[in-house]
Each structure stands twice: as structure tokens, then as C-alpha cells.
């Protein structure tokens, strides 16, 4: 029983951390129509910043400032935001599929930097010993994980509430206006370029936050955690849940991560041990099938965008 409870706590922590990244992507794609195919890269920036700011000092590697957890979270968001400003200025002029190709390339490049700039990132070995704040608050793994889950729930709750407010604000309506027709938005005196950049940067900061929560929980960071498949998983979560709906984003994260872990569990039990190494491939095929099937059967996702009619137009 305790085993199951610990497992559920563990599962919820990871799927909610994914959920944060999906919320960030939802702001970019769902509300603003920006195709960011480099999600893994921006979570990586956040993750490494967290590791550098809060991790222990080590020889021959930069960082190890042993700063508090909250400083790490804020630092991670700032670093991802700075990365997003640079990337956004260079690429946001591009439309749709060119933006997808360019951001995909950015994620590949960021992963190469993580892999090779040993002084900053520890290279292939990554950075270990990243403190998990819950270790100081309780004894025993279950209590610690439960406390960390509480932290994650608070962060998800704050992010969710902030995003809900933001997308209902005038600025949020401007995002949708730019998404639907940026010429019309420009003719009303709005600046589509500026709005796109703001939404892109804010979305990437949220992805950085997700990466930071992840490394503190796992305790280490390595370049292999940010392969392009992470981007595809996060996209699948958004498509399954329903883009332009923050509840859908979180629901999609829970469902897709649930399918991923359950299938991993089933494969580890059912598949003979000689071909266990191929189990990961089976999971990836499954994610691909879910993504394609969802697009064919229910492209708006489980709970898609709600229609909003201006209250002036209603009566």
C-alpha cells in the first residue's frame, strides 16, 4: 500500500513538472500560435541554471553557488527568458514551419552545448548532487516526496492562476488576435512582433521553471535528459489535452505521462529480458501513435478551446 502511495506521489510530481512546461507551450502555441519545436532546449537552460545556482561547488566546473531553492527557480526563469529574447529576436519574424525548423535547431544546439561545454555543464557526466529542499524538511523518502509534491503543486497552481488571469486580460486577447490575424491586429494599432516576442519569452520562462523543478527533484542534470523526444512528449501532451485551454494542458500532461509510465511498467513485466533494451522504443512508438491518432480523430484535444463571445456582442 505504502509502495503504491509512494509511486503515485512520484508519478504526480513528474507529470505536474511536465505540466508546467506544457502550460508554457500552451501560451506560445495555444494562445499565440507560435510553433516552438525547441521546448527541450529551454527546459535545459532552466535545469542547468538551477544546477549551477544551487548545486555544490566543484573543481574545474563553473558555479556551485549553493543558493536557496527559490533563488534557483527565479534564476532559471531569468536565464531561459534571456535565451528566449535572443532566440525570439532572431527567429520570430519567421512564420510557422520555418519557426518550427529554426527552434528545433536551437534545441539541438543547446543540447550540443550542454554535452560539450564541460566548464559550464559538466559535459556528458552532467552535474550531480543538486539539493532537493524537501530533504531538509522531513525524514524518509515518502514524506520528502510528499513535501516536494506540495511545492510542485504550489508552483503549478501559481503558474496556472497567473496564466488564466493573463489570457483573460486585454494582453491575452491581443495574443489571440495576433494568432488569428496579425494584419488585422496591426491595423488596430497593436504590434504583432512585440506581442509575439513577449508571449514567446514568457512561455520559455515557464519551460525553464519546469526544468528547474525537475533537476531539484531528480538531484542531477545530464544532457541526455533534453533530447528532442522530450519536445515531442510535451507537444503530445498539449495536443491530447487540447491547446488554448490551460486545464487541457495539465490534463494532457497527466494522461500522456500516465500512458508513458504505465506502458513502461507493462513492458518491463511482459517483454522478455533479452529485448528489454527495446522497451523504450515501444514507448516512443506508442507516443507517436497517440499523437497521430489524436490529430486524426479529435484534433482539438480532449478539452479544447472554449469559445468566448464578447459581452458587448451578446445581448
Amino acid at each position, binding site marked *: 500500500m505504502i509502495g503504491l502511495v509512494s509511486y503515485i506521489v512520484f508519478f504526480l510530481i513528474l507529470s505536474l513538472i511536465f505540466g508546467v512546461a506544457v502550460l508554457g507551450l500552451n501560451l506560445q502555441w495555444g494562445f499565440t500560435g507560435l510553433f516552438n519545436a525547441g521546448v527541450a532546449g529551454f527546459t535545459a537552460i532552466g535545469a542547468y541554471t538551477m544546477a549551477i545556482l544551487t548545486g555544490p561547488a566543484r573543481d574545474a566546473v563553473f558555479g556551485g553557488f549553493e543558493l536557496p531553492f527559490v533563488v534557483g527557480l527565479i534564476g532559471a526563469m531569468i536565464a531561459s527568458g534571456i535565451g528566449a529574447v535572443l532566440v525570439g529576436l532572431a527567429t520570430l519574424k519567421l512564420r510557422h514551419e520555418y519557426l518550427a525548423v529554426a527552434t528545433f535547431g536551437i534545441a539541438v544546439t543547446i543540447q*550540443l552545448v550542454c554535452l*560539450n561545454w564541460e566548464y559550464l555543464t559538466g559535459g556528458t557526466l552532467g552535474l550531480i548532487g543538486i539539493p532537493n529542499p524537501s530533504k531538509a524538511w522531513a525524514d524518509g523518502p515518502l514524506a520528502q516526496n510528499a513535501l516536494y509534491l506540495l511545492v510542485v503543486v504550489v508552483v503549478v497552481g501559481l503558474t496556472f492562476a497567473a496564466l488564466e488571469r493573463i489570457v483573460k486580460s486585454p494582453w491575452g486577447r491581443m495574443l489571440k488576435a495576433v494568432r488569428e490575424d496579425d494584419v488585422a491586429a496591426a491595423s488596430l494599432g497593436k504590434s504583432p512582433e512585440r506581442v509575439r516576442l513577449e508571449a514567446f519569452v514568457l512561455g520559455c520562462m515557464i519551460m525553464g521553471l519546469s526544468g528547474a523543478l525537475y533537476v531539484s527533484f531528480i538531484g542531477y542534470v545530464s544532457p541526455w535528459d533534453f533530447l528532442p523526444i522530450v519536445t515531442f512528449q510535451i507537444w503530445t501532451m498539449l*495536443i491530447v489535452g487540447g491547446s488554448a485551454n490551460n486545464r487541457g494542458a495539465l490534463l494532457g500532461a497527466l494522461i500522456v505521462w500516465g500512458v508513458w509510465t504505465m506502458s513502461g511498467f507493462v513492458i518491463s513485466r511482459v517483454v522478455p529480458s533479452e529485448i528489454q533494451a527495446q522497451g523504450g*522504443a515501444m514507448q516512443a512508438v506508442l507516443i507517436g501513435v497517440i499523437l497521430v491518432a489524436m490529430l486524426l480523430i479529435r484534433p482539438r484535444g480532449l478539452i479544447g478551446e472554449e469559445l468566448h463571445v464578447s459581452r458587448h456582442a451578446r445581448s
Partner: protein
Amino acid sequence: MILQHIADGILSGAIVALGAIGLSFTMKMLRFANFSHSELLTWGAYSALVFVAFFSSFGGFFDQTIGPFSFGPGLLLAMLCACVTTAIIALLLHRFVFGRLSRAAGHMTMVFASFGVALILRHLVVLIWGSDPIYYSRELQFAILLPGNVRVLPDQVFLLGLTVVVVIALHLFMTRSRTGIAMRGVAESPDLARASGVNVDRIITWVWVIGASGAAIGGVLYGMTVQLRPELGFSLILPLFAAAILGGTGSLYGAVLGGLIVGLSENLSVMIIPTTYKPAVPFLLILAILYFRPEGIFGERST
């Protein structure tokens, strides 16, 4: 040294060009960025492996090697069969995924779907053939020493020769045959082509067949001169996109020239940046071209 880098660049550029032709055509004519196109190279390479084994089971004629090359008639036949197999895969994908989505949903939905299709195709290769590198043959070859101390293998000479033949054949097809001319018309404007009596669906079938065959040949040549591994196509995604965008989507010569530029700049880049950063070079090329000339070298500025 620099001559060797140029030779290597032209060779890897030829493979990129073969893959980029199909990607460039689908980007222009089906109007979506197909992230799964590079997996067709992987499937071409691995399906040829099956046919190589099949033909060599007949022994004799199929098992011999031709002249200085590491392969014989078996591999050449297998390459043809791989083209057919890969074309069938591409047509099935069009029939059940991309074609449906292009009618029912937007272009971006097709891009998402291509992410999913790429995941499925790549990991099916791992499931079927495993993740260890495989070779078509273990024949050892002696390098040919060219002037300037440049070494190339006979198989690499074949790679280049076959690429030239394929490009010339495609050139003749696009300029001389009615289908090829209609294809260029569809690239210009599908609606206008349809109004002039072109069967656009048939042309789209041709686009997939040509694209998939080019990808299969590129994949087999990669397998022949490097090795077969499941990430073969995946590692070429950015080079292929860079070549297609550099050349201008929908242009045959653009894709070929783009492929050569990508291959050359990747291989020459190691003289100024660490080799480990080589995979980022195509991405920098994409950024540069999109910034300065988004329509590509041979593309036309659309209004």
C-alpha cells in the same frame, strides 16, 4: 587537408541533396514541413538490407563484387527494391495521415503529425533491427589517392556518380515529360494547375514517389559509405531542412546546390570550430538564409 575536407563535404553533400529533393518538393507542393522525411532515408537503408540478404541467398551472381567496389549486383537490385518499398511507405503515410489532414485540418496539424510519424518510423527500426550499427558488407576497400593527397574510396566515387545520374534523370523528367512539367505547375500554383486540367492528386503521388526514392537511394548510399543505424535519418533532419530552405523550396537544382553547401560547410567548419559542434552548422545556415534571403537561392519571392 583542406582538399580532403572539400572531397568529404561533396560526398556527404550528395547524400543530403538526394534527401533534400523530396523534402523540398513536399514543402513546396504539399505546403508543410515534413519532419518525418528524414526517416524515409533510414527506411530505405534498412529495407535494402532485407533485400541484400534475400538476393545473396541465391548466391553466385548476386554475391560477387563488381571491380573495386564493396558491393555487387545484389546491392544494386536491393537499392531498386528499397526505392519501391520506401515509396509504398510514403504513399501509405499520405493516404492515411498527411492526405487526410491536408483536407481536414491546417498545415500545422500536418507538421505535428509528422513529429508523431517520425517517432513511429524511427523506433520501429529499433524494434525490428536493433540499435547496433549494421553494415551491408565487410569487404575491405583500398582508398584511391587523388592529386593533392586526397583519399576517396571506390564506393564514394560510385556515390557521387549515382547522385549525378539521378539528378540528370530528374532534370530530364522535370523539363521533358508532361508529368514533370505539370509538377512544376503545381508547385507554382495548385489552383491554376487544377484549372488547366492537371490531375493534382496524381502529381502529388509522383511527388511522394520521387521524394521517397531519392531518400531511399540517399539512405542506401549512406549505409554503404558510413553505416546503418536507427538515427541515420534523424541526424540528417537539420541538414536536409537547411539544404531545402537554402536552395528554395520546390527547386530541384536548389536542393542539390543546398545539399552541397551544407555538406561543404559542415566539413570545412571543423577547421575553425571543434568537431563536436559540427551538427549545429546546418542550423546556423538555416538562420542565416532565413534572415537574409528567406525565399532561398533559387526560390521566388512570394508576395
